[in-house]
């Protein structure tokens, strides 16, 4: 119970460093633990059944070997890495696994995961591509099936009030994360990109209530401590997720402070609260389909190219303005189509705001990171007017 006493950033670092640890402890204490892939499965339902949701991530520091037989090299390396860890039994404590049809990579990986890494309970959540009325309807029905599957597995019904309670808890978490994001608005930011990443991944590896305590503790610590960070160029990260501090460290030691991330570990899962509706599934389905803003979801094309991009990326303007961004890093994990197709569009969009964009297609490997340093330093020099 050492971890319990240590609070704040240090605890975040510990959990980040030993991701499965807390979940394994809770499992020994009799709690059920579920893994979920990408940010589309509605984990509120898990919480409502007292199940611990653990976000499945990869490891840039671990060469992909065991996955090679099942997922081809031409596939998104993040997905391959996550599955590789699975094959190496690093997620062998799951009582259940929830996959979602977010993108091709996530969907196929989830299927193959369930074929080879068996856990007692599995669900594959189909997520519609559009936000049409029928799509929302269908998505709600999918979530209902998901709920049934969980209830059968646990042998208990989810009471509407329990679900609402869970939603409140997760909304609280979203609010705390946003509050923490607010502390990156000052220059220098009160919390670095690396610290933020450690906190967010920690939060995705422990029960929501513990996560909320952790967030609160971090907020207190960050607001009271002497700010250790120096002012540097303020960077917005857009695109594929970053889930290893080696990468954020590289960026922040090359002349930048990361101040906001529009990624699947950054703002996307946390930016909007779930509305509490009479039938909770209405609020949940609406949130995950309409408010988790990954470009995998098709949003109606406007009458002009401008209207189309505005409809899809308006929120980036807000980020740029309120977080006083100097430049943008478009992070593309090689073979990530969802973001790959958007590169020219997003570049157009940011240039209109007068923000330079550094696009890097990278191979999701710490070994290959150092070669990126020159690119970031040159980008920083560019922003410095050289």
């Amino acid at each position, binding site marked *: 119970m050492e971890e319990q006493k240590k609070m704040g950033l240090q605890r975040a670092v510990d959990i980040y460093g030993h991701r499965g640890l807390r979940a394994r402890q809770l499992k020994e204490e009799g709690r059920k633990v579920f893994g979920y892939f990408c940010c589309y499965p509605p984990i509120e339902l898990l919480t409502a059944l007292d199940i611990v949701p653990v976000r499945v991530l990869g490891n840039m520091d671990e*060469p992909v*070997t*065991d996955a*090679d*037989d099942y997922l081809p090299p031409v596939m998104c390396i993040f997905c391959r890495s996550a599955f590789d860890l699975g094959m190496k039994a690093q997620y062998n404590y799951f009582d259940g696994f929830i996959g979602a049809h977010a993108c091709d990579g996530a969907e196929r990986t989830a299927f193959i995961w369930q074929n080879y890494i068996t856990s007692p309970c599995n669900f594959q959540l189909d997520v519609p591509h559009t936000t049409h009325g029928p799509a929302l309807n269908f998505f709600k029905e999918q979530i209902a099936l998901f709920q049934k599957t969980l209830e059968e597995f646990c042998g208990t019904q989810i009471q509407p009030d329990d679900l609402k309670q869970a939603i409140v808890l997760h909304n609280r978490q979203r609010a705390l994360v946003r509050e923490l994001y607010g502390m990156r608005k000052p220059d220098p930011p009160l919390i670095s990109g690396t610290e933020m990443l450690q906190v967010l991944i920690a939060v995705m590896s422990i029960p929501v209530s513990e996560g909320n305590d952790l967030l609160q503790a971090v907020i207190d610590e960050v607001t009271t401590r002497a700010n250790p960070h120096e002012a540097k160029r303020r960077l917005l990260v857009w695109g594929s997720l970053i889930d290893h501090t080696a990468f954020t460290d590289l960026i922040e030691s090359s002349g930048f402070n990361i101040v906001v991330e529009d990624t699947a570990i950054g703002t996307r899962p946390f930016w909007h609260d779930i509305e509490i509706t009479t039938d909770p599934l209405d609020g949940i389905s609406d949130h995950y389909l309409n408010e988790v803003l990954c470009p995998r979801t098709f949003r109606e094309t406007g009458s002009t190219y401008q209207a189309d991009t505005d409809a899809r990326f308006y929120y980036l303007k807000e980020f740029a303005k309120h977080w006083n961004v100097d430049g943008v890093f478009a992070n593309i994990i090689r073979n990530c189509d969802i973001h790959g197709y958007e590169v020219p569009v997003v570049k157009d969009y940011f240039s209109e705001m007068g923000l330079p964009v550094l696009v890097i297609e990278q191979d999701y490997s710490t*070994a290959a990171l*150092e*070669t990126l340093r020159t690119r970031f330093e040159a980008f920083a020099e560019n922003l410095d007017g050289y």
Partner: protein
Amino acid sequence: MVVAGLDIGSVFSRAVIMEEDTIVSMTLKPTGGDFKKAVGDLLRDIRPPDRFDAFDIDTMGACGLGAAFIDHPFIKIAELPCLSRGVHFILPHIRSIIEVGNQYSRVVRINDHGKVTDSLASEKCAAGSGRILQVIANVLGIGMEELEPLAARAVRPAKFTTNCAVFLETEAISRVAEGIPAADIIGGLHHTLTAKIAGMAKRLKISGDCAMIGGGAMDGGLTRTIETELGLRLHVPEQFMLASAIGAALIAAERG
């Protein structure tokens, strides 16, 4: 029947002559850049004076990059079956092979007839090939066989940042100049190569006894490192450089 088997590789050219199932003559020489010449020399030297001249050879099988330059009638055979059949002939009990060549590394599983049942090779680029070992040996002015005792003294095996075979060479060479102990550099190289090769071996689920051949087999150090990494026994046959030539002869005999 008298059969000749040739394996014209980029670095070495080999030939064997077999009468029924016995090797009556074998030769191995550096290809030295000119395939035509290599083939010519080979066909001249392979013939034991007391017995055949080239015309006594009933059929000839050949594989390898330079096979195209053979100006006698012969049967062109893919490298993989030759390699497998050859190893099977030399080590009948072996069911899996690791070949560390000059351009690529290869892992093969064979059945009790020496036929390929499964195989993997490093493709597209030379990353993971054994070429670096020869290069570094030259730089240090030692023979491949001296690499092992050296590597044994490695204290902190050097880490290499690149995958590209060419850059790996330059990186290793500059380490030498930086005064990093040769032992650590070679140790580091052994680990780098082993990582790639072991990866392939694991994918083919290789276990137990296994043959180690190709130029890389000259370096016992690499062999040991792979052994420990994979926890299996590697056998380096005496005629490991000739395996594919022998296989070519055997297959030619079947087809001829």
